[in-house]
């Protein structure tokens, strides 16, 4: 186990810079998830950490050793690939023991460690099988087993669940998290799925276009997104954004599209008339007499909650209710955002304006 420091790391392919100076401190034993849309550079960063890509500038250190020029095999890391990259011509046991075999470990030692990893992952009955004879979830577990056997300083996961079906993905998510709680190995996990990030991470790093947009615990990011990108990326269904202006005449409020009035708890100083984006999460709407009028378009009950798509000031918004309101398309309702949970972003920069 070891801490990892990524300091001002840049990466260029030819003249094209894909990472523009990324700094991420990772504590010993932390589970860090790099999340972002495809092309944001998260996988490249992971591969640089693994030593599969060169570092153009900046430093990456594992423990207190700078690893920029350290060979992948000397870095003491293990990686789980998106397509698992299991050796098709080796049995499960040989796949898991391969790294030990390359290090000339004795066969007793290999057997012992493979067995232990197989027990942790419930792979013991499958040790003599070949990868082709395994299901997707089993292959996923073998790939993790291959990482565990080595007992490395850092685990790297590159979108490990994206080849699994939805149900299995949820199950494996829990399994990986449980595994981390048990082994407490520093883990860097790359995904484009914000739910995976939210559910598994000690710390989420949201990346976009080669920069870090925000780092923090899942709930920090959810409750206080630094900017409009993070606000829109984290949370499902996504946060509603309404463009308009801040109004301060005695009480702060927000004038949304088509003059619709929305409540604000406080306005930042000197912000009267400033163009801004009003953000409200779907679950922070309530039905109230002093709400803004909206027309219901579509109602989608999921059982535990109901998603309602409505037109508010001409813009489509989505609201989620735990209560079972009887709504029908075309109904007029009064939607009120909870003022203390509202987010306000600068229209030009997308930066968060309210505290």
């Amino acid at each position, binding site marked *: 186990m070891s801490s990892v420091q990524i300091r001002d790391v840049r990466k260029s392919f030819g003249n094209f810079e894909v990472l523009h100076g990324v700094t991420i401190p990772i504590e010993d034993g932390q589970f860090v998830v790099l999340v972002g849309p495809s092309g944001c550079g998260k996988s490249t960063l992971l591969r640089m950490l693994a030593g599969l890509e060169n570092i153009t500038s900046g430093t990456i250190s594992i423990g207190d050793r700078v690893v920029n020029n350290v060979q992948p095999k000397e870095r003491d890391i293990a*990686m789980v690939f998106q397509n698992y990259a299991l050796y098709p011509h080796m049995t499960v046991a040989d796949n898991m023991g*391969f790294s030990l075999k390359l290090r000339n470990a004795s066969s007793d030692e290999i057997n012992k460690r493979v067995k232990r990893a197989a027990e942790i992952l419930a792979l013991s009955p499958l040790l003599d099988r070949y990868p082709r004879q395994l299901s997707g979830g089993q292959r996923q577990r073998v790939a993790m087993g291959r990482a565990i056997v080595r007992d490395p300083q850092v685990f790297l996961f590159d979108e490990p669940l994206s080849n699994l079906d939805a149900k299995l993905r949820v199950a494996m998510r829990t399994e990986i998290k449980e595994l981390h709680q048990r082994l407490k190995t520093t883990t860097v996990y790359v995904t484009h799925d914000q739910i995976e990030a939210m559910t598994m991470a000690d710390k989420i790093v949201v990346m976009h276009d080669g920069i870090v947009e925000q780092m923090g615990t899942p709930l920090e990011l959810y409750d206080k997104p630094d900017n409009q990108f993070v606000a829109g990326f984290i949370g499902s269904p996504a946060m509603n954004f309404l463009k308009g202006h801040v109004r301060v005449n005695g009480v702060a409020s927000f004038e949304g599209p088509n003059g619709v009035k929305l409540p604000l708890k406080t306005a930042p100083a000197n912000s009267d008339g400033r163009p801004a984006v009003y953000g409200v999460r779907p679950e922070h709407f309530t039905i109230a007499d002093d709400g803004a009028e909206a027309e219901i378009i579509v109602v989608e009950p999921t059982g535990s909650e109901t998603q309602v798509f409505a037109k508010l000031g001409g813009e489509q918004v989505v609201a989620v209710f735990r209560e079972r309101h009887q709504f029908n398309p075309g109904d007029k309702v009064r939607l009120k955002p909870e003022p203390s949970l509202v987010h306000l972003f600068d229209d030009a920069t997308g930066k968060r304006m309210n505290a």
Partner: protein
Amino acid sequence: MADVAIPRAKPQMTEAGAWAQLKHNRNWLGFWFMVPAMVFLIFFLAYPLGLGIWLSFTDTRIGRVGQFIAFENYEWLWDDSIFWLSVFNTLLYTFVASAFKFGIGLYLALLLNEHMPFKAMLRAMVLIPFIVPTVLSALAFWWIFDSQFSIISWSLKQLGLINQNINFLGDTTWARICVIFANIWRGVPFVAITLLAGLQTVSPSLYEAATLDGATRWQNFRYITYPLLTPIIAVVMTFSVLFTFTDFQLIWAMTRGGPVNATHLMATLSYQRAIIAGQLGEGAAISSAMIPFLLAAIMVSWFGLQRRKWQQGENND
């Protein structure tokens, strides 16, 4: 309810004629799709093979119908030192040429699989020996190895390394080296391109995983590339061995089996005895004698080609 039962049309399926039934019978249709291939195989493969074997049991000559003489041709060959020399030549030729073709082909395939400038052009260039008609390349080699006009002798003389021409095709050892060299030159592209195709099916992430597991480049080859390539190696080397063993054109165009039969292969000897000398029966016996060798080669690859356990899907045993 005043609905009236609509009279159903009588089903007529059972009344369809035998012909209409046949038209929709998949096996019947399948049979006819198979016929062209079958006819082709019977007339151009099975029949000549059978005829050749039959001829080898007769004393047929050109212009004379032969008598059945059982194994007399074979008994004759058993005591024929030239026949045994040709067997030795063929085995030497096949073994040495195939080994080199495999080595060079694998090397080229690994090289062309790397990222490098002009990769597409280099790959195309590798194919050149393959697309030049064999007889043309054989004639070119014939000139290159000519006793008087050889460009190799000329170059070495200009460099002052030798004083007189090397008698490439006139010396038994040199002649063997030359024809084997020509065969290697011609056979390498097939091996290289086929192995390259095989290499490209290996997922790059396997190498990345192995690298992270601590494998050196050699270990990457030894534990990942080579085992994953074995099925293709088995196929390509079977073909290569069969082609080399039955080679005729190169030898006939370059040396006609000479000097002193040093480059006579079974195929060229068979041609010489059967067509040039007119002893069809004896020639057929020589070519029939190739069959056990070819069968042995096929058997080796048959067992080599057996789908390995890791390639199979469901079987859990």
